């Protein structure tokens, strides 16, 4: 079955840059965020509901980092950003598996 490469395979951390984002960063280390949402162990759509509830906590242009390990979140959080006109900045592999998915509040 075709799958994107999942994290936790023992290789060096990968960064999945958002193709649409203008200011993607080439660094492999995760930059700081304004708010971190811990959705590890939670199944979709819960991580997205948590993000939708808290996106307005950060100031305009602020970045929310969603920690999630449900494989659906990797696709669904960027898709949510597209539908809701926020920006998916990048997704960073977590050493224990899962990702830190960075979202910038646009409005």
């Amino acid at each position: 079955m075709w799958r994107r490469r999942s994290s936790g395979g023992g290789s060096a951390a990968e960064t999945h840059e958002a193709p649409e984002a203008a200011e993607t960063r080439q660094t492999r280390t995760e930059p700081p965020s304004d708010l971190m949402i811990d959705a590890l162990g939670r199944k979709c759509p819960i991580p997205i509901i948590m993000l939708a509830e808290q996106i307005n906590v950060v100031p305009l242009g602020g970045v929310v980092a969603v920690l999630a390990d449900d494989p659906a979140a990797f696709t669904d959080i960027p898709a949510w950003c597209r539908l809701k006109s926020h920006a998916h900045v990048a997704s960073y592999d977590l050493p224990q598996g899962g990702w830190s998915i960075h979202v910038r509040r646009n409005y």
Partner: protein
Amino acid sequence: MPLRAAPVSVLTVAYLDAASTEPLHPAAREALMTALDAGWADPARLYGTARRAQMLLDQARAEVAEIIGARADEVSFTSSGTQAVHLGVLGTLRGRRRAGRRLVVSAVEHSSVLNAAAVHEHDDGEVETVGVDRAGRVDAAAFAEAVSGPGTALACLQTANHEVGTLQPVEEAAAACLAAGVPLLVDAAQSAGRLPIPGGWSVLTASAHKWGGPAGVGVLAVRKGTRWRSPYPEDERERRRVPGFENVPAIVAAAAALRARTAEEAAEGPRLSALVDRIRHEVPRLVPDVEVIGDPVARLPHIVTFSCLYVEGEALLTELDKAGFAISSGSSCTASTLRPSHVLEAMGVLTHGNVRVSLPRGVSEGDVDRFLAVLPDIVRRIRATLGVH
């Protein structure tokens, strides 16, 4: 234990899952009943009843060949569409071993193609996967580039996607394959009987139960001149392509259904397509935060897929079942696979809260009306349980 009545009578259930399997076509039922009596003997033998079975089998083969644009001697019947794909992929790779060990597939092929590709990879073969756009369409230029790579033994492309209905650029892919001297396997499982089979294939696969034939019949056509060698032990049946005793009655019924379905399509296709257009248009109007996915125009006539934000897909399908709708989903996030649909993932669209509505032949407009009437409240209630209002 006392018997309890089901909440919704079986008679009122609307079947909207034709992409999983189409109900048996009346023409297939009639042909099956006749052929069970006339075509049960071993078609490989020489006595009268056997020759009768052979004649029925030949007739079915000729009919299917004509509809798919093949010669009768290019067509074999398999025991399923999946087996046709497995034989098509692995047999062509085996036949073209000298040409190379590279297999090109699209990222949104049916699991039968991708699982055969995984076997090839385990066998030290190389697999290159070509991505798709947001609508689920393969990038024709990227596909052409991939097949022109050295050592390419085979390329595989579906006619249309089974989860979102988007049509694939098969003719462009076939032209690129022809230029590169690479055979193209076209998986026509979702479109056969509904849309004309595009030309340019070297290997064609299809599945009878998707067009209203019985289960247990697949089609494998291998163009003359395409090198193919069975990955199975030798067997005399079906031009040495498919092992085992042919199910002649089911094959006869499959051919009858394909003939009938193809003849009806001129009227039924546009009718179903108009109902799909209506669902595509109405669902986002009636339900907030919905993404309708797949190509709105270059699509199959009978499939429409959408995803609802903040809704767990399984809960949605369960509630629709309670309301009298047999519907499935491309994604099964929380079910047996524990992975989102590889198709939706490759498209980069929402994978949760996914519903695939696929209309069978003869579906009533009233069923679609009722679906559109119950959906908004079901979605609202599920969202409310998760605290989303």
